[in-house]
């Protein structure tokens, strides 16, 4: 845990440092790198894309994922999980490209593509988190006279929470990367800088976008893995230690 944390800090420090370096000293002959102001703007755009798509994915994914674990809808759990798993095998590039014929170009279709892609891990983990709870735990809760709602709130939710947060974490990281690709359909964000660097074949420009995208992903991963840890009930952390 701490080893990973230190690595993350070092990585973030190096990547942000390099980005700043290229921003101020990256000019070469005719070519100039993106300005500090543009970098900030693109970062903000990028975070907005990820933030909106991810919030939607969390809302829809968790409620949908939990819903299909409830009695009447249980038959949906297996097919939905299977679809989510297959969906994740689609390359983000194909998805982004596939969205634009229907929704055009710009930030909105970008968010739609990101939302679809981010939804899958959240949905899958919410379902799996509940389904993987030891059956005997639920049975004893029922046998002791807990109502369905009490079982959900006091047993299922806390036990599934770490898995759900892990889904959000995977989804967010995927989303940061996919958002860079969304620049293909002109959605904005750091991908725009990478693409511009590519079109004029200027490495510093490409690196500015790529390094900062990576730094964003690592930062969010760090934050979310801390959250995951904090939300894992103590009794379950012990389980992991002894395994």
């Amino acid at each position, binding site marked *: 845990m701490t080893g990973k944390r230190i690595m993350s800090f070092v990585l973030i420090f190096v990547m942000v440092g390099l980005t700043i370096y290229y921003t101020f000293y990256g000019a070469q002959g005719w070519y100039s790198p993106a300005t500090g102001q543009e970098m900030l703007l693109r970062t903000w755009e990028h975070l907005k894309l990820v933030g909106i798509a991810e919030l939607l994915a969390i809302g829809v994914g968790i409620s949908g994922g939990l819903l299909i674990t409830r009695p009447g809808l249980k038959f949906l759990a297996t097919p939905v999980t299977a679809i989510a798993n297959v969906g994740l095998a689609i390359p983000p590039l194909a998805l982004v490209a596939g969205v634009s014929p229907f929704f055009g170009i710009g930030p909105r279709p970008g968010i739609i593509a990101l939302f679809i892609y981010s939804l899958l891990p959240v949905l899958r983990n919410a379902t799996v988190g509940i389904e993987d709870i030891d059956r005997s735990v639920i*049975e*004893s809760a029922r*046998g*002791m*006279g807990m109502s369905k709602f009490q079982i959900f709130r006091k*047993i299922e939710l806390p*036990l599934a929470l770490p898995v759900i947060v892990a889904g959000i974490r995977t989804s967010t990281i995927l989303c940061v990367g996919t958002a860079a690709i969304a620049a293909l359909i002109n959605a904005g964000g750091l991908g725009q800088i990478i693409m511009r660097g590519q079109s004029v074949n200027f490495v510093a420009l490409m690196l500015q976008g790529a390094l900062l995208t990576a730094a964003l992903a690592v930062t969010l991963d760090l934050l979310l893995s801390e959250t995951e840890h904090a939300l894992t*009930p103590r*009794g379950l952390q012990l*389980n992991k230690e002894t395994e």
Partner: protein
Amino acid sequence: MIELEGVSKVYPDGTEAVNDIDLNIGEGELCVLLGPSGCGKTTTMKMINRLIPISGGRIYIDGTDNQELNENELRRNIGYAIQEIGLFPHMTVAENIATVPSLKGWGKEKGRERAAELLDLIGMDPEEHMERYPAELSGGQRQRVGVARSLGADPPIMLMDEPFGAIDPITRDRLQDEFLKIQAEIQKTIVFVTHDINEAIKMGTKIALMKDGELVQYSSPAELLSQPKSQFVRDFVGADRTLKSMRLIQAKEAMKPSPISVHRDSDVDHVHERMKEEGVEYLMVTDEEDRFIGWVEIWDLETNEVDSITEALREDVGSVNLETPLSDALSVMLEEDVANIPVLEEDGKLEGILTFNDLQQVIGETYTEKGGGSAIPG
């Protein structure tokens, strides 16, 4: 207390798991549902607290049809313990045990007090274990906590589905003993599922033997052993039912009380005379407080030059307690290769003597009394 009237269960897939069972379980009774795997024990038990809906017949709890009660209320008043235990891994031992008290709105403090009380009862130090998580307990401790949790709100009725099924034989034996001790104190009405005939004989005041969803015989353990109603019962009980029935009788029921013994300070010649008079070759020796300390043998007194009983004393010999089952007493006799064995109180006080003849006689009586005379070997 619990009455099953023509109870049946047909699962949605058409499996007829339970077929027209009548069962009347009295207050304070420990009724064992016994039978081979798949005979419908668990199904029968779970219909009592409505974890499985009933297909036909009625179940009355204290005279009330259980279908008329609120299902969660019903379950909160019936303790429930299962083989897989199902402790809540994210809750401490105290929180686990206080589950039903908390559902009943007892309040946090009272729930914790109850948890401490129950940990005490099951022989786990509350100080040390209250704040632990299930992952920090041994298998046997988890099983105990599971039982404590089912006792949480002091329910008058308990359902236990192979509660000691998943642990090693030695721990299981200890947990069974502990539980019997607790039950003697708390006197719950218990439905106890097992497929282990030995556990059934040990735990049950009544045994309901099932086969293919039907009730084959419902009687006391002794009666099940001595008067099996059918070939199936005989086979299920096993060829060694004589031995098994010995498990049901305690040493104190078969022993001869107030046996002849001598004090260790007695005069050697005097003791020798006495033995000749009584025509015995061995004599038990006691100390100042009437505690058994060993035997003397007549030839030790005759051939060896001994000045005191203590010198001739043979220590390190076997003994049994008042509550020791005859089967165990027999093992001790065979191991020690003796035909007599002293029966002691907990503190070592000599209470009686058990002879090989006594064993034979008692078993004979049980069988002839109950009409199963043919079972006496030899």
